[in-house]
């Protein structure tokens, strides 16, 4: 799949060269943390219940921002046609975009999480958290990449993308928040495993489904 790597290289180079997106996403995630601090007045007694949710709101809101831009490079100058003219599987285009989106969202999370632990003096960066973040990001991006391609052509695209992504991704949010809460508070390992399994199942099912269905989004 050298074509997937060619596509991925192109997306990574474009982003790192222009840096339009990453900086904005990262800053936005920090601003979300800031707003939540005021909204919930996060003192110690509230913290354990609320904090994991705050973290994932920051991740997903910043994520949606990034997903909305993921096909923008192709929209200018009609470059999507360029990809569609190539004798490659449509799914390869999806896969490359998905990996790129996971990487970008991952970078933002890597910035946001340490700041979170510092701001609220809560939470930790452990292997558990990394696995949960990765699985959650993959699930969210799998759905988001598909719908981002779809909304690029729609009126009111900025509104439609979150409306499409968030309801479908509810299981990801629930599972990620619950698993994160258990990881932070050192709760029952069995429960945590259950949520991680749900995330993995979601990723697998929708990764495959979206990969297969992507060609119907881009054909005309």
């Amino acid at each position: 799949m050298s074509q997937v790597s060619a596509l991925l290289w192109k997306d990574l180079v474009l982003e790192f060269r222009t840096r339009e997106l990453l900086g904005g996403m990262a800053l936005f995630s920090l601003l979300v943390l800031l707003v939540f601090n005021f909204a919930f007045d996060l003192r110690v007694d509230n913290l354990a219940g609320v904090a994991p949710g705050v973290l994932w709101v920051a991740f997903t809101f910043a994520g949606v921002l990034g997903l909305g831009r993921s096909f923008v490079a192709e929209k200018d100058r009609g470059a999507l046609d360029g990809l569609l003219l190539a004798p490659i599987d449509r799914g390869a285009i999806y896969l490359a975009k998905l990996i790129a989106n996971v990487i970008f969202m991952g970078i933002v999370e890597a910035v946001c999480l340490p700041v979170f632990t510092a701001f609220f003096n809560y939470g930790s960066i452990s292997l558990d958290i990394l696995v949960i973040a990765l699985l959650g990001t993959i699930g969210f991006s799998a759905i988001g990449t598909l719908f981002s391609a779809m909304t690029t052509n729609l009126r009111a695209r900025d509104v439609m993308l979150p409306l499409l992504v968030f309801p479908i991704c509810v299981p990801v949010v629930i599972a990620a928040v619950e698993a994160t809460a258990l990881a932070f508070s050192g709760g029952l390992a069995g429960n945590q495993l259950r949520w991680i399994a749900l995330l993995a199942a979601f990723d697998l099912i929708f990764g495959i489904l979206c990969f297969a269905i992507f060609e119907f989004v881009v054909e005309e």
Partner: protein
Amino acid sequence: MSVTSLPRTREVDRVAPSATPLIDRVLQGALLVSFLASLYLAFIYAPTEAVQGDVQRIFYFHVPMAWLAYLSFFVVFLGSIVYLWKRDQRWDIYARCSAEIGVLFTTLVLITGSLWGRPIWGTWWTWDARLTSTLILWAVYVVYLMLRSYSSDPARGARYGAILGIIGFADVPIVQMSVVWWRTLHPAPVIQLEGGGGMPPQMLVALMVSLVAFTLLYAYLMRQRVQIEQLRSEIQQLEESEG
């Protein structure tokens, strides 16, 4: 016949204005009968529930409507798959109409759930598993209808709708599972009495009849709605071929 006279309309060509096909009349009749029966059974025949009182009778409508919502969205799912496979516009019409009816029923499920919960728990809403999953389902299919109306090209709207119809329904079991697990971790007031252990036979009968009544309602609404859409599509094709 002289060439200058206007062609006369033959008797057989005139369509009687109020002719309804047999199947629609059968449906209407069955619908009337089953709804009357289910109203009687729900309000008079079924015993009053011990704990909740008469308010519990909403159950005989709330549960079948939830069932119908899932049926509607399953039809959307099927219609979407067949449409993407065959590109036959009829299947897209089935999907879209079923989605509209499904959103209607889902809204009613949420409203009846709310009306049920209020006298019992004192709140207009409770985040129990069923209501929560129904709310998410409602959101997904309302977005489906928005997606269809925001697409300027109908063929594209049909295609995008089909994609959401498939992904949305595939999500349903996973949403259920995640919400139920969430609820077992953080329990909250439960809104309904599941069939389970102690439902007396009279209640079961009332429930089943109500289920039949609502299923007939779905079939009736679908027929009406699909006919309207098909007429609309025919008109459009006529307009195009003249252009």
